[in-house]
């Protein structure tokens, strides 16, 4: 398979042979040949993940090992705070947090997960951004940290209410972990890094493992009758129901953390008046937006009818399409909620929950309502 935009050969993940053996439909995604869906299909894979457990191959994502040159992990945290507007310094060992990389205009270069591993930071970034992110970190703070690109490692996500019961028998450490805990441990005899987090709104784990051991671990998880392999198709509808942003669709370099409703990812210490306020790229712009407001804000959108409203659809305040007040950035049918779900950006005056809007769909204007996110309640093990 080749990349349709560049004709370059697509990369394959360490689980490629397993996907083919399982029966899969592959698609090009971020330079990789990735599973869109398996035999069960998007709808069944989505519902199974919410009922039991789904196993996702997300090895295309970028895994970084960031280590302080001084040997003190606090120095790495302090350096990362110059790039990420989150409280990195107070994050305890064995804990993970969501964060953003911002640019000088306060736009979002990427969103990521970072974890304090005791004497280094484990960072997971989006596939399409991983080289640029690593370059950016090296260029900015390479004098204080080393950035190891662990792009050959596999990353599996085991998501769903049965995840703990599936993993614990082959990884006893897993059961005691709570949401956003991270451990270096073993699955059977295989060294892994596991975090109790994911991208579905369900309880679950992400499992980082050396490429050579990936199939061994995946086989062991799939051997459990509660686990179904799940592709990127269902991953998208799951994250959308969970109200989670997809970088490149809902977030990009022109959206700020304020507009994206992601100020919760900037903890008190980094906000105006905090002990380490600002100090990240674009902090001035973000703080000005906080004080003065923005022209648009990210909201959830629920269609009244059955027709899915997709990314790119313009949003209007009136049913005749006279006054555009926003745009849909991603949308799909939500199998668990059994109605179309979407998110987008709208002018603040139209952003209140319950506000009626109209999305342009094939030349018509279909009613949608601004909805609270998530569409499905999060079921994390707090």
């Amino acid at each position: 398979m080749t990349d349709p935009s560049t004709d370059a050969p697509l990369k394959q993940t360490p689980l490629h042979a397993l996907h083919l053996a399982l029966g899969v439909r592959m698609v090009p995604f971020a330079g990789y040949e990735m599973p869109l869906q398996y035999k069960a299909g998007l709808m069944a894979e989505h519902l199974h993940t919410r009922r039991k457990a789904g196993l996702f191959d997300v090895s295309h994502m970028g895994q970084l090992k960031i280590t302080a040159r001084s040997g003190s992990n606090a120095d790495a945290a302090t350096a990362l705070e110059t790039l990420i507007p989150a409280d990195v310094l107070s994050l305890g060992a064995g804990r993970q947090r969501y964060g953003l990389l911002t640019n000088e205009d306060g736009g979002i270069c990427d969103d990521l997960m970072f974890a304090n591993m005791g004497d280094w930071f484990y960072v997971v970034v989006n596939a399409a951004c991983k080289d640029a992110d690593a370059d950016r970190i090296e260029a900015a703070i390479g004098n204080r940290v080393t950035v190891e690109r662990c792009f050959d490692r596999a990353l599996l996500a085991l998501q769903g209410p049965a995840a703990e019961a599936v993993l614990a028998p082959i990884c006893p450490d897993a059961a005691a972990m709570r949401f956003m805990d991270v451990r270096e441990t073993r699955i059977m005899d295989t060294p892994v890094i596991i975090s109790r987090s994911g991208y579905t709104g369900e309880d679950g784990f992400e499992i980082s493992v050396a490429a050579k051991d990936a199939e061994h671990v995946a086989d062991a998880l799939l051997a459990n009758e509660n686990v179904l392999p799940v592709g990127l198709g269902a991953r998208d509808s799951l994250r959308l129901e969970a109200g989670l942003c997809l970088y490149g669709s809902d977030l990009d370099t022109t959206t700020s953390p304020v507009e994206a409703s992601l100020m919760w990812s900037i903890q008190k210490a980094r906000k105006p008046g905090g002990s380490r306020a600002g100090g990240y790229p674009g902090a001035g712009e973000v703080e000005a937006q906080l004080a003065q407001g923005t022209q648009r804000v990210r909201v959830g959108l629920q269609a009244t009818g059955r027709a899915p409203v997709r990314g790119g659809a313009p949003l209007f305040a009136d049913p005749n399409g006279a006054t555009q007040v926003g745009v849909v950035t991603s949308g799909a049918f939500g199998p668990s909620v059994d109605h179309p779900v979407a998110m987008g950006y709208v002018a603040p005056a139209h952003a209140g929950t319950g506000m009626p809007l109209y999305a342009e769909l094939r030349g018509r204007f279909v009613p949608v309502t601004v909805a609270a996110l998530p569409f499905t309640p999060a079921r994390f093990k707090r």
Partner: protein
Amino acid sequence: MATYYTKSHEWVRIDGDIATVGITRHAADELGELVFVEAKDAGVELKQGDAAAVVESVKAASDIYAPVSGSIAGFNSRLTDEPTLVSNDSEGEGWIFKLKIDDSEALSAELSGLMDQDSYAAQIG
């Protein structure tokens, strides 16, 4: 009644001046479970190859084209509540819309450009 097939994976069955249209088993399998189906409004006049209906899977929307010229004469209203009928019985109960054919001479010419079941089976391999 003969069934004809298009390169864009519609089937059409002619009964007098009414053409019944759906998507093929192959197309239904490719699309996966459908969540929404709608056709243009009754009376809308279409030329062969015009977009006539839309089927939506969880992931994406796909146009369905008029295999022959005619005006929309009906929509399979069962699909409103049960779009998966298309996936489950694509060439039977899961038909999508009917066209009223206004020009029977033009119809013959249009049908001659479509495929029979064997040619279609050969195309999809």
